[in-house]
């Protein structure tokens, strides 16, 4: 069996106000070549392509292969938003192990302006189009405001506690030249920011950007041995049929198996990219995976995140670096690989050897239905 590794990770620059020529195809192309050039692979050696994008249509993955001049043995397109990156990685690793492909590029990204986002939000799925959009709900903020309200009540938290997630991630963003928001964020800034959907404030919501991310999964001799290994991957989608409270994800059901497969535990993780569409979901996923000691969320955010700068979403996460549509999941994966390869610059976590990356998303009616996670290990 071939042994795949993630051998490159690249992010096409995120921008809030993109030039017109930075179309979806343009940023996906930029990310694709950025990744393969990083590892010195001729594009002709790429024999697998995985794509996630909300705005690539009417084109599909094979259109992108055609336009990039790729002749591939394996192709896949994943529409599952924040969970698409780990989904694609899960399949790509198995494909390389099985010999269906040797070198696969996974790329995700979007050119998303306000009009494109509004269309996406209103037509996300049939339930949204038929049962939410007619309300004038305006997108998922209101739904996650409700989730946050329930989480507040369940854990005795206040807006000051959720602020710690945004503040901590902004500290990391200040060390990432690629983050769209880098200036320091203080508690007063957070508390004085506009309420978007109570209790959510501006800094609890991701800024939309245009951009793309890509990784290369390969078993090619001389390349893979320097790469980042996938120690474990686990997923559960539609865990509760949207009939729960949204305060846990499918990760709660697969966490034990993930750690067992990885041969390590939460305490062994050096850096984490946890899908951060909203601060509440960061805290929910961490708790699902047993990474909040004693389940004490309040203590975790103040002691670990803010005071001890536990390395969570070290790019600044989507909250500060931006959400490039379907690249939202791939963004955290790229950051984790960078950390494990020692390429994270000023924000490099010393000795980072093991990383956790999670994906979450696809709000079907009340909250996200997709959840997955991967444990990575560096080659150093």
């Amino acid at each position, binding site marked *: 069996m071939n042994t795949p590794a993630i051998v490159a990770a690249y992010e096409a620059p995120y921008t809030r106000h993109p030039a017109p020529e930075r179309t979806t195809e343009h940023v996906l192309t930029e990310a694709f070549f950025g990744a393969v050039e990083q590892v010195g692979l001729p594009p002709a050696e790429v024999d697998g392509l995985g794509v996630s994008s909300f705005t690539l249509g009417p084109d599909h993955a094979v259109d992108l292969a055609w336009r990039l001049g790729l002749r591939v043995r394996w192709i896949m397109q994943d529409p599952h938003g924040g969970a698409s990156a780990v989904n694609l990685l899960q399949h790509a690793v198995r494909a390389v192990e099985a010999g269906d492909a040797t070198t696969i590029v996974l790329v995700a990204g979007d050119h998303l302006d306000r009009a494109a986002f509004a269309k996406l939000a209103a037509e996300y799925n049939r339930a949204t189009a038929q049962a939410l959009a007619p309300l004038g709900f305006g997108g998922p903020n209101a739904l996650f*405001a409700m989730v946050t309200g329930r989480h507040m009540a369940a854990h005795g938290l206040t807006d000051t506690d959720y602020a710690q997630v945004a503040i901590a991630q902004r500290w990391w963003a200040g060390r990432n030249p690629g983050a769209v928001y880098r200036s320091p964020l203080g508690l007063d800034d957070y508390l004085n920011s506009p309420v978007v959907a109570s209790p959510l404030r501006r800094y609890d919501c991701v800024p939309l950007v245009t951009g793309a991310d890509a990784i290369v999964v390969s078993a090619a001799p001389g390349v893979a041995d320097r790469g980042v290994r996938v120690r474990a991957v686990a997923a559960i989608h539609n865990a509760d049929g949207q009939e729960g409270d949204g305060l846990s994800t499918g990760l709660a059901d697969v966490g034990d198996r993930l750690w067992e497969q990885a041969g390590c535990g939460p305490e062994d993780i050096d850096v984490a990219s946890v899908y951060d569409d909203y601060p509440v979901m960061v805290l929910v996923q961490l708790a699902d995976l047993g990474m909040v000691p004693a389940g004490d969320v309040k203590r975790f955010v103040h002691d670990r995140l803010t005071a001890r700068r536990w390395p969570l979403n070290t790019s600044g996460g989507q909250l500060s670096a931006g959400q490039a549509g379907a690249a939202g999941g791939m963004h955290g994966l790229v950051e984790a690989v960078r950390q494990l390869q020692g390429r994270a610059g000023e924000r490099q976590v010393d000795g980072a050897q093991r990383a956790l990356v999670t994906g979450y998303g696809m709000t079907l009616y009340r909250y996200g239905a997709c959840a997955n996670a991967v444990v990575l290990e560096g080659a150093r």
Partner: protein
Amino acid sequence: MSTGITVRSCDGCGHGQFPPRPVCSQCTGREFSSRTVHWARIEEVVSVGDPVIRLATLRTGDGIVLIGRLHGDSDTSTPLSDQPDIPGTAYVPAPGRAGRDESDR
């Protein structure tokens, strides 16, 4: 005036469902009966948008959870309607009627 909303119950186990799907999440049954529900308890309220609208998580007496738009003042319970903007009710769009609701405005 409350018109109520149409929900479905599984003929096999009685589990309620909204929005409608082809399979019961509890027993995998595929036969359903429709019925009208007139009231729900208000569990959470969120104000969003400009002009501001009040969206709510609503729970019917038999536990079906809905998202609706409030047009009344109560924070505890509300009559339900599948028609938009009826004073005193919570509007819960009926799947399949979205286009008509939009064109009615």
